[in-house]
């Protein structure tokens, strides 16, 4: 059937630039709409204003530093200084947008492909959008600053740098967008997200243990050897090739430019493959089914608590253990203890340099870390429930039972983490058992304080957070309150300790902490009752916050 004239009226062909303008408008509108929720409006605005202020000051300051880098490299003819500058640009351009994308997803480009755009326009939009990322703008500013520095310090190098710098920038843009589009594919599935997060976190922990725990054992020579072994990789890396193009003769210049173009083409080709798959409506399959009879599974039955609370504890622990971030936070204190034991105090020495802190007291810190690292589960105990929150309201369980179940679950996780830490410490170092006893008393006191405050904050300022994703797990206000609580608990223990030292009566420390624990236990009971009542009265409000 023919399309009528009325249907075609007002229709105009759109160019890539028009699409891009529309895209920017949508992004701006989404941001403005996100400020509509009155409870978050001011906090978001202040956070954004503060971030922009820091970014502008930091951006201008760092750009000046890069002018200095370029000038120093040019005036002294030191290509390695230029190399360091280019490497910094490369790192920022490649990694910062990934962090930005993972922590604050904005526009899903797969949706853009549904509109009447060609693959070419889609590709160009993707690249243009990539240029607008704040960290990319900063990277480009740094690169320009380096060039300005070169221009002042050695104009000949600056002229020679124009082409390599442009090729380097093109490579960075294409490579970063290619990596992001690959990441988008991996992160599109729940399992992919969880595995990536776990990998990133395990790598971070391994790096910590390696740097502070293992490398120092080999001394300075081992560290030098390690960096020397990285040299061949540096020479062939894009910043290394760009440096070579500027500081060497015409033959190497041509080869370096060819290498940069080859890198860019490779990145562009990978990006095109991913975008074409997106454009053609690639669908992501998640998990496969297992066939066979359903296995009967009896739930947990815990001593001292009712069957109903046991079920709640089981649900909470299962949820926590499915979150790679929580898993890593559970394991990190043990890694911390390992670092202390393996590094023979190196980590402690580095961290306490000039602070007159007795290194042997470092046995306390991993236990405190056990308490703090997963405390977000107590401060925002409904955060992962999302739409499941309504299940609590529908069930005949009382709000008090629900909160107790959640508290028991976090106590179990704390116990597991503390066990890991102290087994490593007992096995690996000459532990003071007196200090261990005081530490555990302090942890009990701190744990009760966290639960008492956590129940209040969980019901009053709930924040939805996604299990297995690198999203914020506490609101800014709760984070601030949790820091204040940590400071208050720490200060009270320190005061008790100082008092015992002043009166030369060591027994004052445990007795004082026990007294604080008893007072906090009473506060916990009161807080539990009050939080349960608040929960009963504010189901709608909390439910809306978690949506």
């Amino acid at each position, binding site marked *: 059937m023919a399309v*009528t004239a*009325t*249907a075609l*009226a007002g229709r105009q062909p759109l160019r890539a630039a028009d699409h891009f303008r529309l895209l920017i408008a949508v992004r701006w509108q989404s941001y403005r709409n996100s400020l509509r929720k009155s409870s978050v409006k001011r906090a978001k605005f202040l956070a954004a204003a503060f971030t922009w202020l820091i970014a502008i000051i930091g951006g201008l300051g760092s750009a000046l530093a890069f002018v200095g880098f370029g000038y120093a490299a040019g005036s002294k003819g030191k290509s390695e200084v230029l190399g360091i500058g280019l490497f910094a640009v490369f790192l920022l351009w490649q990694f910062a947008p990934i962090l930005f994308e993972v922590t604050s997803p904005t526009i899903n480009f797969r949706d853009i492909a549904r509109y009447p755009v060609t693959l070419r326009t889609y590709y160009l939009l993707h690249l243009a959008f990539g240029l607008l990322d704040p960290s990319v703008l900063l990277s480009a500013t740094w690169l320009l600053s380096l060039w300005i520095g070169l221009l002042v310090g050695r104009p000949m190098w600056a002229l020679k740098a124009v082409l390599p710098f442009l090729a380097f920038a093109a490579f960075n843009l294409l490579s970063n967008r290619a990596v992001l589009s690959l990441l988008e594919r991996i992160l599109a599935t*729940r399992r992919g997200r969880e595995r990536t997060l776990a990998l990133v976190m395990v790598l971070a922990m391994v790096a910590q243990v390696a740097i502070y725990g293992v490398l120092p054992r080999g001394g300075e020579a081992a560290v030098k050897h390690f960096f020397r072994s990285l040299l061949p990789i540096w020479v062939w890396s894009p910043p290394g090739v760009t440096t070579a193009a500027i500081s060497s003769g015409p033959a190497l210049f041509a080869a370096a430019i060819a290498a940069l173009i080859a890198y860019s083409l490779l990145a562009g080709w990978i990006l095109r493959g991913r975008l074409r798959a997106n454009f053609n409506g690639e669908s992501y399959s*998640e*998990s496969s*089914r*297992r*066939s*066979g*009879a*359903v*296995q*009967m*599974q*009896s*739930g947990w*039955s815990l001593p001292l608590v009712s*069957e*109903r609370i*046991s*079920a*709640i504890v*089981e*649900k909470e622990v*299962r*949820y926590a253990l*499915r979150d790679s971030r929580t898993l890593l936070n559970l394991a990190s204190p043990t890694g911390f203890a390992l670092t202390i034991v393996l590094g023979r105090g190196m980590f402690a020495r580095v961290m306490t340099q000039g602070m007159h802190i007795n290194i042997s007291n470092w046995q306390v810190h991993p236990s405190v870390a056990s308490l703090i690292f997963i405390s977000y589960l107590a401060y925002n105990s409904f955060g*992962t*429930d*999302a*739409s*499941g*929150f*309504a*299940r609590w*309201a*529908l*069930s*005949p*369980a*009382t709000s008090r039972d629900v909160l107790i179940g959640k508290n028991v679950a976090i106590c179990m996780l704390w116990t597991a983490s503390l066990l890991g830490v102290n087994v490593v410490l007992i096995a690996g170092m000459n532990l003071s058992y007196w200090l261990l006893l005081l530490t555990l008393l302090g942890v009990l006191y701190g744990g009760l304080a966290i639960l008492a405050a956590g129940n209040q904050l969980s019901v009053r300022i709930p924040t939805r957070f996604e*299990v297995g994703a690198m999203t914020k797990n506490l609101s800014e206000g709760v984070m601030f309150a949790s820091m204040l609580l940590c400071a208050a608990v720490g200060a009270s223990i320190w005061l008790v300790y100082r008092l015992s030292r002043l009166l030369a009566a060591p027994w004052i420390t445990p007795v004082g902490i026990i007294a604080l624990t008893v007072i906090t236990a009473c506060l916990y009971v009161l807080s539990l009752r009050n939080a349960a009542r608040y929960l009963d009265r504010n*189901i*709608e409000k909390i*439910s809306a916050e978690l*949506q």
Partner: protein
Amino acid sequence: MPDAVIETLSLRRAFGDLLAVDGLDLSVTRQQFFGFLGPNGAGKSTTIRMLTGLLKPTSGTIRVLGRDFSSDAVAIKQRIGVVPEGLALFERLTGNQLLNFVGRMYGLDRDTAANRSVELLEYMDLRDAAEQLVADYSHGMKKKIALAAAVIHSPEILFLDEPFEGVDAVAATTLKRMLQRFIQRGGTVFLTSHVLEVVERLCTHVGIIQHGKLVACGSIQELRAGVSIPGAEGRQLTLEEIFLKVVGGVAREDELAWL
């Protein structure tokens, strides 16, 4: 006097200036299959959320199974099953773990909860997905697991918000059969649905809400008797015709001329 298991009196719920439910008087008796209909935004989900304790009324009273919701909420919740609008599932549990958890939340002992979970997973044709996370289920599978979670503790009343939306024909037949058996054994079903054919086939009684007010209520025969449409004399009106007549407002033919 029939045994009313759901009663509301002058039920009202306001969201700021918007009156979502306005003076609702409703009575549903035991073994009724009650369909609660209305256009989008009429107040159906708000009503069902108030009847199940997810939302507090601004004013008015709710009595379920002879008890007042404001004072006996826990006792009432023990005897009702709900499939709410958002399904309220803990999606990071497997289907088997979820049913087990819900069963125990309703006071079933561990063995009974485990047995019933397996039976329900089999019945709902979810046996192959029993150990998959609910997060990985399709929409229809989530609906089925939510329904299984609503019945695991043998409730006396089922509140179902759009139970057939997104469910395939085979699953819908299974669900319908299960609901009819539930009614035969003394249960009561209160459901909202946009699929009028399903409501017409299953429901014994229908209530129609518009702009927060109950505009028609009764058995389907009673509704048919109360509505007349010019040109349809001498034949039995469908529920769709009754519904459109009561709520009115089909868009004019000349609108959206450019489409």
